[in-house]
């Protein structure tokens, strides 16, 4: 019952923090060699992670880090899920006493806040970034590879997620505009109660249909949705209500305006596009990102942490390069984790509109590691550096034996220590 109510809330209120108790959770029947996983303390995330792991028969130790009740991606961007958070949960959970190994699996999407080298230096644990989606974790563990498969690193935005983000977008748009619309109804009677449901429907439609609508993401897609919705409206109104020409024209225009507005805000609610005003209004890519080739030491981290598959490996030069700038959403994970500061960019603070990560550094630069503690610098090594030679600086050189997974014997495989 409670879970159902919570799920209903999560359909609309994901903008708001929803904390659950941080600490150590046992998943299934973990032993001294079981994997140690880290996640945030957003209620929905923790519940889904545990459900998925139990379903997949994974025995593991789960560290629920104190991220102020914010999900992994947003908390990492907003400075609530950082190297310090990982340091803190490792110390306070007492996980040291439960396992013999020191291998830590971090969510890939925490990479914009968590520094690989920092965790290594300050905790003595060996971190690595797991898959982006918890559903792929079982496959990742079974493979026993130190690196996630490319497809598991990439963030997807499937119809179900788009719908849920659409309802959230709708709820928040309504919340934001309810007061101005109520005031406007002093002059335009009845405008507000017709506009608010319209906004909600347009929000859901713009999110669900984002890949199918023509135009660039942002205002352009918003306008195309608006034109489509206006056309439907004209047909309906002529068939059923016989609206006179002036109100008909007014409503048609109003629908397009609202839709453009929603189209502008929608990328904030997606895991794929960045809320850059110029990008979303003009449809011109603003983000620049470049790897200084001389500094690249071929450690693979930029590629591993990238949720949008921006980088390509050049096997000849044993370097990485930017291959897919269009997909880059300026999350800053690669910049945070590059040990030689080889990645340069013109990012500015914040990837979306909500208070959580827009505040990183206001309009200051993300180029500096502002929120982050000192991390060891790795000296650039000559081109000989690659994964086949001794000079390799690769953070992920070792392979582990794969873990055999079994389905749990009972449904309630979760115990709290």
């Amino acid at each position: 019952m409670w879970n159902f109510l919570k799920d209903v809330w999560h359909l609309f209120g994901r903008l708001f923090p929803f904390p659950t108790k941080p600490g150590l959770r046992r998943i299934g029947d973990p032993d001294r060699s079981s994997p140690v996983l880290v996640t945030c303390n957003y209620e929905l995330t923790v519940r889904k992670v545990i459900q998925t792991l139990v379903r997949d028969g994974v025995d593991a130790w789960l560290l629920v880090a104190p991220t102020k009740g914010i999900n992994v991606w947003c908390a990492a961007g907003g400075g609530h899920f950082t190297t310090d958070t990982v340091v803190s949960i490792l110390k306070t959970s007492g996980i040291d006493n439960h396992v013999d190994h020191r291998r830590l699996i971090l969510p890939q999407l925490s990479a914009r806040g968590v520094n690989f080298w920092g965790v290594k230096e300050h905790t003595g644990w060996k971190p690595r970034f797991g898959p982006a989606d918890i559903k792929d974790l079982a496959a990742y563990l079974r493979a026993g590879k130190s690196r996630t498969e490319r497809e598991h690193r990439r963030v997807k935005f499937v119809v179900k997620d788009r719908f849920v983000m659409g309802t959230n977008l709708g709820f928040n748009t309504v919340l934001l505009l309810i007061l101005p619309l109520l005031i406007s109804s002093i002059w335009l009677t009845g405008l507000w109660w017709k506009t608010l449901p319209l906004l909600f429907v347009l929000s859901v439609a713009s999110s669900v249909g984002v890949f199918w609508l023509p135009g660039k993401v942002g205002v352009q897609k918003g306008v195309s949705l608006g034109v489509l919705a206006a056309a439907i409206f004209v047909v309906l109104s002529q068939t059923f209500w016989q609206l006179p020409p002036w109100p008909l024209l007014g409503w048609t225009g109003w629908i397009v305006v609202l839709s453009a507005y929603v189209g502008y805000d929608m990328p904030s609610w997606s895991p794929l596009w960045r809320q850059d005003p110029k990008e979303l209004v003009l449809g011109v890519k603003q983000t620049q990102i470049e790897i200084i080739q001389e500094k690249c030491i071929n450690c693979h981290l930029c590629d591993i942490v990238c949720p949008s598959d921006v980088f390509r490996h050049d096997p000849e030069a044993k370097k990485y390069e930017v291959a897919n700038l269009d997909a880059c959403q300026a999350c800053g994970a690669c910049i945070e984790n590059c040990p030689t500061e080889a990645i340069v960019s013109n990012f500015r603070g914040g990837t979306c509109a909500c208070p959580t990560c827009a505040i990183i550094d206001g309009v200051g630069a993300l180029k500096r590691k502002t929120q982050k503690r000192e991390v060891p610098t790795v000296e650039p090594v000559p081109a000989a550096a690659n994964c086949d030679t001794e000079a390799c600086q690769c953070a992920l050189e070792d392979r582990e034996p794969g873990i055999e997974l079994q389905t749990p014997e009972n449904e309630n495989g979760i115990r709290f220590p």
Partner: protein
Amino acid sequence: MSTLVYMKMLEQTPAKYDRGMRLLTLGRIDRIKREIASIWVEPGNDVLEIGCGTGTLAALMTERGAHVLGIDVSEPMLAVARESAPRAEFRHMTATEIDQLGAERFDRIVATLSFSELSEGELEYVIGASAGILKPGGKLVVADEMPASRWWQRSVARLVRWPLAALTFLLTQNTTHALRRFEERLDRTRYRVLHRERYLLGTLALVVAEKA
């Protein structure tokens, strides 16, 4: 549209943080800081400040002649602190790492409005660790949000709590929560409470405890 509004409104700067905290405690926090520096810290003391923020208290304590080490997890805050208290030492460190600073090293451990940002597990750990790094007879000085002691104060506090929490979040992007059963925790951990004072309807408290 909402993006630009939010971005401007929520730009997080250390100066804004100070203003926000001052407003939320109705100026009381400045007076408490002066009291800590003049009464609870003595010249020559080795002081650890947990969550030093912009270093206002660290500056007051160094003026009094104490040797101050301030730790915080926010680099922009530390940058401001280094300027405002040039004689103090500052380090980027989480509160849970204080046990690495050396056993029985400090005369005083001071924390103002920073324990309330810790999770319950962290708080428990930090109190235990703090007892380890204090010299025998050393003092832990904490000024923070705590639940009021009288029922009517608690009811009033609860009424203003929600708008206040929203305001805090807008001003500082911090969600603090009152320290519950703080003195009980101290009693369990080799501490003896020497002094307690309550302000603002009992919701803000200064607690001084001595390591037994």
